[in-house]
Each structure stands twice: as structure tokens, then as C-alpha cells.
């Protein structure tokens, strides 16, 4: 009986010594000490509770709600800002996807046209087909499907260029918006309404269309 008691005390003593300087022990040693027997394990659990009880008693000071609210607000804004960029990124991906599909369609049509040309004609006129057919058309097609990227360009410079393509004018009712800068991918093959919708993904921007005018509010 006395020996069991002594062993228990020795185990708990080792636990206390380890807790005073855990860095001197490996993870395995810590696990071995805490889990040596049920008594030691229970003692550790009680110590966890005693520590919580101490924090519970000591930590009764009221929370500074204003300061906590400010910190929460900062975090919230940060999160919303991040989310805004995710929306923008999603719209870019959408634009790239549309361009990709258009490019693939042109490529398929061209392949199809090539296949329709009789075999004999190709072998006879190899040089002609190479020099006359693809060079011009290919360049032209590629330019039309390539989206134009405006990176950090003021809106007052970017938007009139886009508007000119659709033969509409730009009116800024919000002067601040003139200096807005962001990254925008414009696909000239898209309709004007789609472009306006993409622009409206930017949180600070409201763009509407009225007849032949694009209005930036």
C-alpha cells in the first residue's frame, strides 16, 4: 500500500517537474509522463481545470467594447475587400473563358475549311497556300479575339477608348470616379451591356447606359 502511494507521488512529482520546464523534455517523454497511469492523467486534468479556474477568477475585468468593435470592424472591412477582389477575379476568369471559347471556335472552323480543300490541290499548290492564305487572316483574327488589358489606367482614360468602339459617349457625374484605377480586361467582341455589367462588379463603381451615353456615377 505504502509502495503504491510512493509510486503515485513519485509520478506526480515527475509531472510537476516536467511542467516547470517542458522544453527539457521530448514530446515522447512528455506523453510518457502524463500518461504513466490513470492517477497521473487525472492529476494533469485537474491541473488543467485549476488553471482555467484561476483564469476565470482573474479575468473578470470588463471588455473594452469600443476597442473590440473597432478591431472587429477592421477585420470585417479587410475581409470584404478580399471578397471584392475575388468577385473581380471571377469576372476576369469569365472574360478569359469567353475569349478562349471564341478562339477555339475560330480554330475549329479554320481546321474544317482546310479539310474541305481537295487533297490534290494542296499537294500541287503548297507554296501558294502557305504564302497567301494564313498570314494575314491569322493575324487579323487573333487581334480581334485578344482582350485588351487596362492595368492601373485611370477610368477617364480607359472608358472613352472602350466607348468609342461602341460609338457611345462617356459622362462622369461623379468626378472622383475619373481617377479610379484598377485592372480591367476588355473583350471588344463583347456587347456593351456585358462590358457595363463587368464594370459594375467593381464595388465603388456604378455605370449605366442611356441611349448613346455611358454614365459613371
Amino acid at each position, binding site marked *: 500500500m505504502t509502495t503504491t502511494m510512493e509510486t503515485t507521488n513519485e509520478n506526480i512529482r515527475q509531472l510537476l517537474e516536467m*511542467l516547470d520546464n517542458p*522544453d527539457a523534455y521530448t514530446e515522447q517523454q512528455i506523453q510518457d509522463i502524463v500518461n504513466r497511469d490513470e492517477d497521473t492523467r487525472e492529476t494533469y486534468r485537474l491541473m488543467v481545470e485549476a488553471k482555467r*479556474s484561476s483564469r476565470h477568477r482573474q479575468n473578470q475585468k470588463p471588455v473594452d467594447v469600443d476597442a473590440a468593435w473597432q478591431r472587429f470592424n477592421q477585420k470585417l472591412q479587410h475581409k470584404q475587400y478580399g471578397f471584392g477582389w475575388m468577385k473581380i477575379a471571377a469576372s476576369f476568369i469569365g472574360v478569359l473563358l469567353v475569349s478562349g471559347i471564341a478562339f477555339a471556335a475560330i480554330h475549329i472552323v479554320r481546321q474544317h475549311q482546310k479539310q474541305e480543300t481537295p487533297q490534290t490541290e494542296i499537294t500541287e499548290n503548297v507554296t501558294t497556300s502557305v504564302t497567301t492564305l494564313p498570314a494575314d487572316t491569322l493575324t487579323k483574327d487573333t487581334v480581334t479575339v485578344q482582350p485588351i488589358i487596362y492595368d492601373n489606367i485611370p477610368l477617364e482614360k480607359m472608358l472613352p477608348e472602350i466607348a468609342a468602339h461602341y460609338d457611345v459617349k462617356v459622362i462622369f457625374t461623379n468626378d472622383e470616379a475619373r481617377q479610379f484605377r484598377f485592372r480591367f480586361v476588355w473583350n471588344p467582341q463583347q456587347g456593351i451591356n456585358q462590358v457595363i455589367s463587368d464594370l459594375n462588379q467593381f464595388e465603388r463603381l456604378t455605370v449605366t447606359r442611356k441611349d448613346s451615353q455611358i454614365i459613371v456615377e
Partner: protein
Amino acid sequence: MIHLASVLLGDDEEAEDVVQDIFLRVADSDIAPKNDSYLLTAVRNACLNRIRQMQLHDKVKGLMPIEDEADLQPIDKRLERLEDIGAYVDEQLEEPHRSIFHLHFDEDLTVSEIARRLGLNPNTAYKYLMQSIQQIRHHFEKH
């Protein structure tokens, strides 16, 4: 909520962080929290998750549970038990046991530091602390 997180994590900043994360999740969700106990349970679960992810050395330094806590008891009952432990220490432990207990758990002093401060032999300080822990343990095992 911050108080509960602070009791479980032992770090005020981290406690506030946990609570803010919960409110951000609530703000993102369309479903409003049903009541206070829903929020408190969310705090407890988030804290237990954080503890689970801690390194073993950090756990024992902060006297955190090192095994998964399947804590199904209502939170107010848990807090009540913590209050009972505190009351038992103050009312039932005798000196120098009580002072040694407070110096260890409230001021995070090691046993050697406590022994130095109280002018005791370290072995005696170990013995008193061990006796206190055993006494509390046996009392709460019965109740």
C-alpha cells in the same frame, strides 16, 4: 464570449480573435444565431479546435488538455465547476498550501521559484503543491 475563450485559451488576443471569427461567420451566414448558448458553444468548439492544433510543448506550458476533450457538459455547468474549484481553494486549503497553489496557478511561478520566494526547501514546496492537488482532486471526485 471573450471571457470563455480567454479561460480556455489563456490568451486575450487569441480569445478576441476566436470571437471575431465567429461573428464574421455569423455575418456571412443567412441564419441568425438562435441564442446565447449557441454562440458560447461555437466559442468553445473553436477554442478546442485551436488547442487541438497546438504543439504538445505549448499545450503543457499553458496547461491545456493534451487529449481531445469530448466536452458534452453545458458551458454554464463547466464555469460553475471552475468557480467551485476556486472557492474550495480559498476556503478549504490551509497555509502555506493555499499560497503555493495561487503562486503556481495565478502567477505561473515554478516550484523552485515559489520555494525561493517563501523561503522553503524545493522538496517541501513540491510536497505541499502535490498535497493540494490531491486534496482538490479527491474532493471533486466525490462531488
